[in-house]
């Protein structure tokens, strides 16, 4: 709610910008580089496009439960309202069947629809602009081979004035730079991460208008009541303690000795990273592990010993069965907590939410068993959740800011429908 209000204020503020700045955006159709030399679709181009659709996790947003693949209709909760993903099958009426490869390039590279209207940046064109023209054409060639599906997603639920697509121009002026000469980047890993992979969509902190914070790429994001961990060289909150093969193993199988994939990342692993080539996974791992951490280290006050004692009592009684008294757990089955990035994340949302609601490890072909953690929200009150979260964030060498009971109460209202049930007045 606060963010929505802020967004309105921000929209009003930037509306006052001189029209000159807004007009700096390149005219959509003026700067389209030529399409790939071949006009006929090559099988190899379709195969490349199919793989690029995996890299880009297109299905993560363009599939809805029970719907045809790529037909859209998945509601995407944003801080400003709900946006429904569109149908990108080649249906002429409801999909992109009437689009040309140039139209597709304009969408990918400039965030503009075939009819000239602005796309909302829920479609991550600030990332896709890094894709090359050949990649855009291959992706388009692949999408053309899909069976056309006649399906029109529900209209977006955005409040006025955000439902005026033209205002995206203001956002673009502030946050978006279409690159007429797309970079392939110095490394394959950077090209994937900054481009089609759009990792920063979740893992980069956002401005009040939901744009990536410049200079803070991959330092950890806050999205849909989850804290996405940092994907950088930080040893505590990032991937500094992981090797490249370990990053690749996590993305391929959903687990490694450090962590189990779950929550929003589960979809990404299923649709995208588990199907990537080993070479690409290694390239991504190399890039992320070397990505510098710029977040200012904040000196957090040490936790209250009384809170730590309560947290330890809860941990030993409730958590140690799987995570073990020393926190070392059973790596690749139950994730260890010492050194864990999710545990020590500056934003404690994910660790609180795991305790409140439980979580389930993603099932992949390599690791088909969806191990799960039960919900503790029904038996632990807000202060108890805060105590045990503070304990795991500050034990066994871990260090992270304390968790407050009010933060737990706030998240509980959003994600856990059941109120805490006070088990007994006598204990």
């Amino acid at each position, binding site marked *: 709610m606060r963010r929505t209000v802020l967004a309105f204020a921000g929209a009003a503020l930037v509306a006052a910008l001189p029209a000159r700045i807004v007009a700096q955006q390149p005219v959509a159709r003026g700067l389209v580089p030529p399409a790939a030399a071949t006009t006929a679709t090559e099988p190899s181009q379709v195969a490349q496009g199919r793989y690029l659709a995996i890299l880009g996790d297109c299905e993560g947003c363009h599939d809805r439960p029970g719907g045809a693949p790529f037909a859209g209709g998945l509601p995407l909760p944003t801080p400003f309202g709900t946006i429904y993903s569109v149908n990108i099958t080649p249906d002429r009426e409801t999909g992109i069947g009437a689009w040309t490869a140039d139209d597709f390039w304009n969408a990918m590279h400039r965030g503009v629809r075939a009819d000239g209207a602005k796309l909302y940046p829920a479609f991550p064109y600030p990332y896709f602009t890094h894709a090359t023209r050949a990649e855009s054409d291959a992706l388009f060639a692949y999408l053309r081979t899909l069976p056309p599906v006649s399906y029109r997603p529900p209209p977006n639920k955005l409040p006025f004035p955000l439902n005026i697509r033209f205002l995206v121009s203001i956002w673009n002026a502030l946050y978006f730079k279409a690159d007429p000469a797309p970079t392939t980047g110095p490394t394959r890993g950077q090209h994937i991460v900054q481009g089609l992979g759009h990792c920063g969509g979740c893992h980069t902190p956002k401005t009040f208008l939901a744009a990536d914070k410049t200079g803070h790429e991959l330092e950890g994001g806050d999205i849909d009541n989850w804290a996405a961990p940092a994907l950088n060289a930080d040893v505590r909150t990032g991937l500094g303690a992981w090797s490249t093969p370990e990053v690749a193993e996590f993305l391929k199988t959903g687990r490694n000795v450090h962590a189990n994939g779950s929550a929003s990342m589960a979809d990404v692993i299923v649709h995208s990273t588990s199907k990537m080539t080993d070479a690409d996974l290694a390239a991504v791992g190399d890039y992320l592990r070397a990505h510098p951490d710029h977040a200012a280290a904040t000196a957090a006050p040490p936790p209250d010993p009384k809170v730590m004692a309560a947290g330890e009592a*809860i941990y030993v*009684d409730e958590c140690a069965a799987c995570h073990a008294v020393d926190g070392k757990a059973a790596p690749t089955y139950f994730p260890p907590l010492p050194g864990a990035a999710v545990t020590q994340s500056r934003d404690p949302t994910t660790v609180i939410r795991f305790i409140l609601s*439980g979580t*389930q490890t993603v099932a992949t072909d390599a690791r088909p068993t969806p191990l799960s953690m039960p919900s503790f929200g029904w038996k632990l009150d807000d*202060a*108890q959740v805060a105590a045990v979260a503070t304990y795991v964030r500050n034990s066994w060498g871990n260090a992270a800011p304390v968790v407050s009971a009010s933060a737990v109460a706030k998240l509980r209202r959003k994600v856990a429908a059941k109120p805490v049930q006070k*088990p*007994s007045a006598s*204990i």
Partner: protein
Amino acid sequence: MPHNPVDRRAVLGLGLLACAAPLTSSAAQLTGAGMVWRANQSAWPTATDLRASYVYFTADEAAFVEAACARIVPADATGPSAVEAGVPLFLDRQLAGDYGKGARWYMQGPFGKNTGTQGYQSQYPPAGLYRVAIKAIGDHLSRDNGAPFHKRPAAEQDAFLKDLSAGKVDLGADADGKAYFTLLLQNVMEGYFSDPIYGGNRDLSAWKMIGFSGARYDQRPYVLAYGKPYPLPPVGIGGRPAWSVKG
């Protein structure tokens, strides 16, 4: 004897089929696709509200049950009495619920006298048996000299309960005194030692008394610690006092 391989194969094949059928069905149950996990989902027990008054017992029934509990488990140096541990409240809530109704039991006739090797044989579900038997006990005692059970001295109460347990008290055709005492004794023990979330075993007192560590999932760190005292205090499903910062 004529050799007939076809018949033998057919028999073997049928046998294999019979074995395979249950295997395929259990294999299907074990695949991940069928296991549904949902956030915030737990099969949590319904906690007893200790502040509320009795919901099943009448005032007369509560007076008898409290007095009987105090004699079956009296307070001593090792632990509190059944009343102090909250057992009457536990009994009240159990009798008000599915247990009291015999909801999961076969409760149709014929009803006969328990041969001693059978399970529960009463025509009444547990809640009904408490009601009928306590009424009959009250009637029985009022025939003697009028003083109800809970107003008698402890020695007289003990003597009466012993007679009841031995089948020496005739409660009439409707209530079997020995059967009722057997049920009451069983229920008092259940309340005294069950998890505090259900109303008895208040402050984990019974578990502290016998050194039971409670609702813990994993004892591996302590199994091989021979000769060392077990370090952990009892914990209930709802926790223990150390879970909260005293303030």
